[in-house]
């Protein structure tokens, strides 16, 4: 068989989505303190490495490749190692799907910046992907519970979640909130001005690459040019509108529009359009972007009021704008939304899907998080937090611009010996 346009498109899109996780590493990494930047980025990178392996081994099989186990998940052993897909074009779809699992779990890390034990995170990632991401993806996209033929979906109606408002953003937002509560506040939360972002250009780099990758995220599954074009346009205009809306909100509230706000607005707009990208008009996308940008700009302050340290606003951005996008479809979905005369069915289906996912993800993440926290511990020591998690957990610092901090010291080319010895075994 020759390559078809849809193959090319999906492979390109999958590569774009893969790039989103390192992009997230910059978006998040720029927002932490300089002494935590590497750990923040590593949480995304290691999520990428681990989840890629998990996905190939059993994740893809559980999220849709394997046959349904009670509508809850696919049989993980059926396509273990992607056996059965080799020699077929379905490998492309498996790759595309894998990149979604990767970014979803990576998104969570923003809620626990500066204070999570790296080992604990490395354990959390595969467990969460297996027990939370894969099932929920199966419910929505793999023919499970929430799909038209599923137990809930057949009763409440099938929710629209084109590219992952529920599966990716609401999911990650809820999981982030739960972990933030388990780990507790950073030392100095809400008081220490040292907790400002250390490199806003990195945040903007991250936002830009996320936007770029998101064309793949939203568009990859399209096989019709009119649909693909609509998705493309909506993925351009919703974040644009949200950027403007976030800046305007800041201008009114704080007096100045900020660049951190602009970058955040882009992401909020992208999150909101994710479930809706194929089902709203460009004008609808503008409206959705405006609402998401403004709402998330306001929502990021809630953590100070309620005292949960969702450090980099996974809740304020991903949960809030994810919910807005998901629920908005009940109103502005072009075929079935209320404003298009479609009745309350769609809104009901959207609400049910969101609530079910939130409940399951919340409970399951709580269980996983507490299990890790109570056994090996999920939080670094107070003195490590003081020193900086990069040094404490990775024995590295992000930058050395020629200052005096590290230029004086001794140097031991450690692996000269051990490396050689181990190699020569």
């Amino acid at each position: 068989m020759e390559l078809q346009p849809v193959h090319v498109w999906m492979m390109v899109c999958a590569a774009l989505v893969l790039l989103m996780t390192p992009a997230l590493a910059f978006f998040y990494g720029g927002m932490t303190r300089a002494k935590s930047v590497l750990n923040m980025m590593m949480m995304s990178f290691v999520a990428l490495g681990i989840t890629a392996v998990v996905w190939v081994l059993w994740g893809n099989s559980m999220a849709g490749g394997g046959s349904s186990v009670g509508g809850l998940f696919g049989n993980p052993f059926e396509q273990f190692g992607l056996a059965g897909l080799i020699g077929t074009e379905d490998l492309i779809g498996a790759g595309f799907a894998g990149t979604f699992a990767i970014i979803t779990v990576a998104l969570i890390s923003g809620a626990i910046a500066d204070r999570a034990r790296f080992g604990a995170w490395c354990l959390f990632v595969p467990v969460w992907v297996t027990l939370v991401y894969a099932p929920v993806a199966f419910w929505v996209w793999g023919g499970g519970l929430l799909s038209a033929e599923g137990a809930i979906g057949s009763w409440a109606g099938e929710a629209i979640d084109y590219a992952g408002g529920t599966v990716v953003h609401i999911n990650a937002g809820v999981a982030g909130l739960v972990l933030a509560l388990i780990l507790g506040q950073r030392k100095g939360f809400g008081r220490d001005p040292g907790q400002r972002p250390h490199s806003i250009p990195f945040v903007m780099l991250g936002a830009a690459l996320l936007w770029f990758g998101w064309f793949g995220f939203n568009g990859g599954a399209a096989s019709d040019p009119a649909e693909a074009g609509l998705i493309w346009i909506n993925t351009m205009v919703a974040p644009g509108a949200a950027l403007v809306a976030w800046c305007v909100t800041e201008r009114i509230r704080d007096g100045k529009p900020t660049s951190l706000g602009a970058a955040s607005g882009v992401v909020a707009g992208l999150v909101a359009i994710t479930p809706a990208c194929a089902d709203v008009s460009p004008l609808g996308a503008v409206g959705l972007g405006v609402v998401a940008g403004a709402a998330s700009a306001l929502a990021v302050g809630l953590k100070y009021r309620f005292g949960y340290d969702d450090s980099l606003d996974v809740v304020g951005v991903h949960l809030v704008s994810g919910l807005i996008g998901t629920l908005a479809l009940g109103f502005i979905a072009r075929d079935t939304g209320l404003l298009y005369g479609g009745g309350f069915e769609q809104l009901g289906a959207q609400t049910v899907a969101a609530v079910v996912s939130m409940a399951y993800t919340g409970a399951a993440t709580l269980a996983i998080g507490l299990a890790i926290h109570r056994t090996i511990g999920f939080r670094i020591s107070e003195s490590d937090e003081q020193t900086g998690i990069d040094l404490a957990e990775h024995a590295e610092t992000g930058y050395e611009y020629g200052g005096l901090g590290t230029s004086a010291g001794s140097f031991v080319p450690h692996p000269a010996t051990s490396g050689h010895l181990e190699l020569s075994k």
Partner: protein
Amino acid sequence: MKLVTAIIRPDKLDGIREALESYGVQGLTVSQASGYGRQRGHTEVYRGAEYTVDLLPKARVEVLVSDEWADDIVDVLVATANTGRAGDGKVWVVPVEEAVRVRTGERGDAAL
């Protein structure tokens, strides 16, 4: 007048500033420094090569004070910066012959 210089842990800076302020000190100058002493450094690893870092980050606080207040200020600094662990730093006092406020040209204690 005296110049009181304190080498302290960077995270003690906020406390110092508040303590001095409540003591009536209206200005001070801070700069970054690195210290070497009894406090042990840390180790960094890059591609398996270990680097031992012995120079540790410190803040240097300089306060001009009148002769009569110097001792009290030293006490405040020592009390506030103390943690009891190696690396707490030093405070020292140097005589100052003249001080001027640039804005007004005032000299002596009036310049502080």
